[in-house]
């Protein structure tokens, strides 16, 4: 009993600090999202769920939601697939392994805005290196079909190293003896991968998925710099739309509503992942 009370006392500072820096802003955004607040016209009134009702009929919101989900699903899937392959390769021993590992990590070290600008030039129809190498004249960022995929591709390039590092750490934790035993029992490479590597790597994969999906659902900077949401909003994500409503048209109420939706998406997904992770841990 005593110990528990002491424990409570010790975590108090952390609780206070956390509520100050996270819970207070979250609550105030929630409150703002229930208001009609336009500082330009001196409007500030409580409107209940009006903003959320408007959300349901707002085509631009649904378009942004679709783009965001597409972006998150494709980019995270590709990052995981490529990341796993590269991590498996790097887990073997070969000459120049240090050099290769360092090369793989570079994209992660480049600041997002810098890499977005870099890709903007590489995607350039006229003097971009991509079209030069392909010998084509594809308008990567100007065509509604390519633009969002181009953003996905940039994100895969940029964040795959992060996935590789985590997976590599996971692979290193699998005891070598298990592999040796499997080989003695006559298991082939494929069944070793399916029956040993993958199951033992599952907790790490889940962690990777949590981090990456949450990041991808909130995607803002990379796409904003690359396309600004265009052409015709075909690359506008929820965060970009929220930014424009909040800071360009200064509709603080509705902008907050959009932010709350982003928060709900990421929040519910992380709860789901946490459940999965716990189930995985108790197995």
């Amino acid at each position, binding site marked *: 009993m005593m110990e528990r009370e002491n424990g409570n006392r010790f975590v108090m500072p952390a609780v206070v600090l956390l509520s100050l820096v996270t819970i207070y802003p979250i609550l105030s955004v929630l409150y703002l999202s229930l208001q009609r607040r*336009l*500082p*330009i*016209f*001196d*409007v500030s009134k409580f409107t209940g769920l009006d903003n959320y009702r408007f959300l349901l009929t707002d085509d*631009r919101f649904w378009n942004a939601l679709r783009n965001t989900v597409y972006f998150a699903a494709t980019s995270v899937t590709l990052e995981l697939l490529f990341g796993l392959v590269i991590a498996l390769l790097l887990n073997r021993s070969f000459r120049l392994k240090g050099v290769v590992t360092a090369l793989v990590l570079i994209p992660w070290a480049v600041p997002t805005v810098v890499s977005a600008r870099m890709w*903007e030039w590489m*995607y*350039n*129809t*006229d003097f971009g290196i991509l079209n030069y190498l392909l010998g084509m004249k594809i*308008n*990567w*960022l*100007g*065509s*509604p079909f390519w633009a969002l995929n181009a953003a996905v591709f940039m994100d895969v390039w940029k964040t795959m190293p992060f996935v590789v590092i985590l997976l590599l750490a996971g692979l290193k934790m699998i005891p070598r003896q298990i592999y040796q035993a499997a080989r003695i029992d006559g298991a082939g490479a494929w069944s070793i991968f399916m029956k040993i590597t993958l199951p033992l790597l599952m907790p790490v994969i889940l962690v990777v998925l949590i981090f990456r999906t949450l990041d991808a659902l909130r995607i803002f900077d990379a796409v904003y710099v690359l*396309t*600004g*949401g*265009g*052409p*015709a*909003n*075909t690359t*506008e994500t929820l965060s970009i739309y929220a930014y*424009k*409503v909040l*800071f*360009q*048209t*200064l*509709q603080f109420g509705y902008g907050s509503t959009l932010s709350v939706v982003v928060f709900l998406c990421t929040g519910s997904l992380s709860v789901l992942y946490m459940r999965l992770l716990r189930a995985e841990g108790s197995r």
Partner: protein
Amino acid sequence: MRSDKIEKSRTVLGKTIAVLALLTMILAFLCGLGCTSDREQHGASGTTIVFKHGKIAGNPKPFRDLLDRFERENPGITVKDETLPASTDEQHQFYAINLDSKSNDFDVLSLDVIWVPEFARAGWLRDVTRVLAEGEQNAFFPGPVQAVTQDGRLFAVPWYIDAGLLYYRTDLLKKYNRSAPKTWQELVKTAQEITEKEPNLYGFIWQGKQYEGLVCNVLEFIWSDGGGVLENSRPVIDSPPNIEALQFMRDLIVKWHITPSLVLTAIEEPTRHIFGSGRALFMRNWPYAWSVFRSEDSAVRGKVGVAELPSFPGHVSAPALGGWQLGVNRFSLHPEEAEKLIRFLTSLSVQKTLALTVGYKPTRKALYKDPDLLREQPFVGSLYSIFMRARPRPVTPYYMMITQVLQPEFSAAVAGIKTPEAALGSAQRQVEQILGEKL
């Protein structure tokens, strides 16, 4: 053996962290040194006013010299000038957040021409009508004055001006015996003729990415066809001339093939690069590009001409107005001193110095006949008639909301995702909704 390895990797990790921490500290220290401004120790008594502005083009020294001159001429006033992030969107965001919370951390602010009605309506700007003497407004170009005026009162003073121009290659037009086009149709014809014979040459490039610059580009076509966005505060976006003009822009790409589809991702700089490397015959851009083309290492040095943007037959050219204005923060504790600074910075002599040193185009008409300026930059003289015609984008506090509707719809039309009718119809409905809402 194994624990040895772990031990070793642990010390390596520890060392790395220590080195990183040290580097961070050194960096922080250096930053601290660099950022402590020497202006802090300036002027023991008197008032200090803070002037927020975007990055001054080129060398910042002449600009600071001007502020020093102001301090000498006005003993007791110290001016602290603070540069905002380069992106216009971020500047708008900075002002909105700070002014909404009634900040008095800055006194004078530089404003993009499209923000003034919005900020004035929000009550963030002080009425500065009296900064200019009776009738002095007439000394300025009409476009900027219209953009800063609400109900007959001035909420900012025009500082420097910008407008859309047509750049063309004098050498190529001469070679094929053509002159700068007066109508858009002429431009198409000339561009088609010359690009047929010149390999690797684009006919006409402009800015088509989804952003504010696209709105300027489209409005120039729309206005020069007799169209518009608002008429007596009512939206007239889906009008026939607007549809015709927007269709014309799409046709430049897909029908007449004089505009490459790369303009759909282009802002000012990429188009300036293409034209500057000699790969385009015509380009729509702002006046800043001129001085770049004039530099020693420019591939088009001496081969560039500037003209008024063309129009549709029977209408007049209508360049979009850009540029920056100076206003006073309504919550400023030193409004008198702030007004003095604005009067100084927008005065004839300071505008002249700024034109000569950093190339800011004056908002005062008289300077376009100034012999010193014309001797240094003969090009400036030819801008006079263009600036006289420069038209502000819709002057309304709703502009930032309207442009958020126009940008994606215009983008959809020029990229061929929607027909001009559909895009403009949708924009019309959305703007009606914005303006019709009871606040």
